[in-house]
């Protein structure tokens, strides 16, 4: 980055001083305009948080911290708790990361490796960037009509028969489940994970790679003992950004998770997540408490994603060139 001309203004020759005042005014207006536009972002962010917090107040007053630990969700008796949704959000995102992490890092290693043939790398890069652009509702449609039946008729029976001794592969299966939602999320976060990790891995200095190869390391050893340790922090940031995406993904999850507020140890069970309960109930909610409870769910969701994102930014910012804007 090589900006910073702001402070290094060329000294003005005395002859031009008569015109100078005129110019400074134009500059000042321009600068004020630019700075106020910048401050606008901060104002929008503040309004954003207030727009969630203020309507959530009735529920926060009513339920206190117990809201986070309660399993109730009953609009009739006005008893609300966030636990089933928190659980669903965390479980589906975890499943997604367990699937996406190894695949994403492997794919990023492939795409960042200049030795691979460009006529394979370029179209693959392109395909993955294309996936990043596919609207989540389309992924959800595909999940609902293609993936859910597939999970019901083959994947879940297979897991149940083969790994049925594990507690999270037990119980009846219907296709709509935490597991299916996790798979859909994995597909959706892969592009971000791959693109960001690829940029981070690219940023590993060439001299390090060459030195390692010159010492006789195989490619696997180069990857394991030079590239991955060097890129560790940046890759962690990429994983966290992908996790932030998974936690907040709404429409696609809503279409495949079954939307049943409950807590089950089995990944085959139907569940609910924070964003999907918002999508389903928000416009139908009546009364200050019910609406407030939904706003509070939104507040919980935003707080979690902000925390994950801030952490991720602090890690990814160290690496030049890795910007999420280049993915979306």
């Amino acid at each position, binding site marked *: 980055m090589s*900006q910073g001309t702001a402070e290094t203004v060329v000294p003005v020759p005395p002859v031009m001083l008569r015109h100078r005042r005129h110019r400074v005014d134009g500059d000042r207006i321009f600068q004020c305009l630019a700075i106020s536009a910048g401050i606008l972002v901060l104002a929008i962010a503040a309004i954003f948080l207030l727009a969630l917090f203020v309507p959530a107040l009735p529920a926060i007053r009513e339920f206190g911290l117990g809201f986070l630990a309660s399993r109730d969700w009953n609009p009739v008796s006005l008893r609300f708790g966030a636990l089933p949704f928190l659980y669903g959000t965390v479980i589906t995102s975890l499943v997604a990361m367990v699937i996406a992490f190894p695949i994403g890092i492997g794919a990023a290693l492939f795409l960042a490796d200049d030795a691979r043939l460009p006529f394979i790398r370029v179209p693959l890069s392109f395909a993955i960037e294309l996936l990043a*652009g596919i609207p989540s509702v389309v992924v959800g449609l595909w999940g609902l009509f293609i993936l859910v039946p597939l999970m019901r008729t083959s994947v879940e029976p297979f897991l149940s028969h083969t790994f049925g001794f594990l507690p999270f592969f037990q119980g009846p299966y219907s296709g709509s489940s935490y597991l299916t939602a996790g798979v859909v999320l994995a597909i959706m976060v892969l592009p971000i994970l791959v693109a960001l990790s690829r940029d981070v891995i690219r940023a590993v200095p060439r001299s390090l790679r060459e030195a390692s190869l010159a010492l006789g390391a195989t490619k696997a050893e180069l990857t394991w003992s030079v590239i991955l340790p060097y890129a560790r922090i940046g890759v962690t940031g990429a994983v966290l950004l992908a996790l932030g995406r998974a936690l907040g993904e709404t429409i696609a999850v809503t279409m495949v998770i079954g939307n049943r507020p409950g807590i089950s140890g089995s990944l085959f069970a139907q569940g609910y997540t924070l964003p999907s309960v918002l999508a389903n109930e928000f416009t139908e909610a009546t009364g200050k408490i019910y609406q407030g409870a939904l706003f509070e769910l939104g507040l919980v969701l935003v707080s979690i994603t902000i925390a994950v994102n801030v952490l991720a930014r602090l890690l990814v910012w160290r690496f030049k060139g890795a910007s999420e804007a280049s993915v979306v």
Partner: protein
Amino acid sequence: MSRVALRVLLDQLVTGLIILCIMAAAIPVVILLLFVVIKGLPGITAPGFFTDLPHPIGVPGGGVFNAIVGTLVVVGIASLLAVPIGTLIGIFLSEFGRNRVGYAVRFVSDVLTGLPSIAFGIFGYTVLVATLGHFSAISASAALAVLMLPLILRATETALVLVPNSLREGGLALGAARWRVTLQIIVPAALGGIVTGALLAMARAAGETAPLLFTTLGNEFLQLNPGRPMGTLALTVFKNALVPYSSLQDQAWAAALLLVLIVSVTNILARVYVRRVQR
């Protein structure tokens, strides 16, 4: 087995695993697109798909004209709001942003980029829908504009920073004021990146569903007044997918194909454009 042979074997194993990974990452894209094309093609080529309004359940035929108009209006107004402001903020960050305000703006906008899209819907609901007392297309546009803003401003900043400093210095040396240098030299030089950023943000906004659920709500009829609820393509996909009628589900696939086409063409155009400008 000798140590060297073991290392070579391990190396080949890792290479195989990496190739497996890239295939696992790429194959879902292909499958997904394949299904959208196969399932959507009959619907999108049906007569009246682009020109008719949705028919009541049970009446065959019908189209998504209202949703196409709605998508154009909602995204259009959002872009009118977000593109000028976002570009201006990008200019601020690149030309005047080496200070605390600049870093704060960068950080906040990056965090905004990572927020779930449904949160923008809640924002639009509280700020506009609840205040106005009814759902409307403009509140959806406002929510989408806030969603697009951080994307546009970061793209603009990145494009402006790439402009060589010699251009700035040349302009200043000729006696031009900084605002003139910025608007007449720097911005035109970075136009490719700025346009690309705006196009990508528009594509992203066109595909969003979650923020629209709380703001424009959807509409089965043609609505041209942005102050009233409008339907959009993404909402059509979502709503028709959850209805147990196969004719409506087919329409969901067709609308999904149209949406994917719009978004992908915009994406490809943006990337091709930036590549051509960079050369």
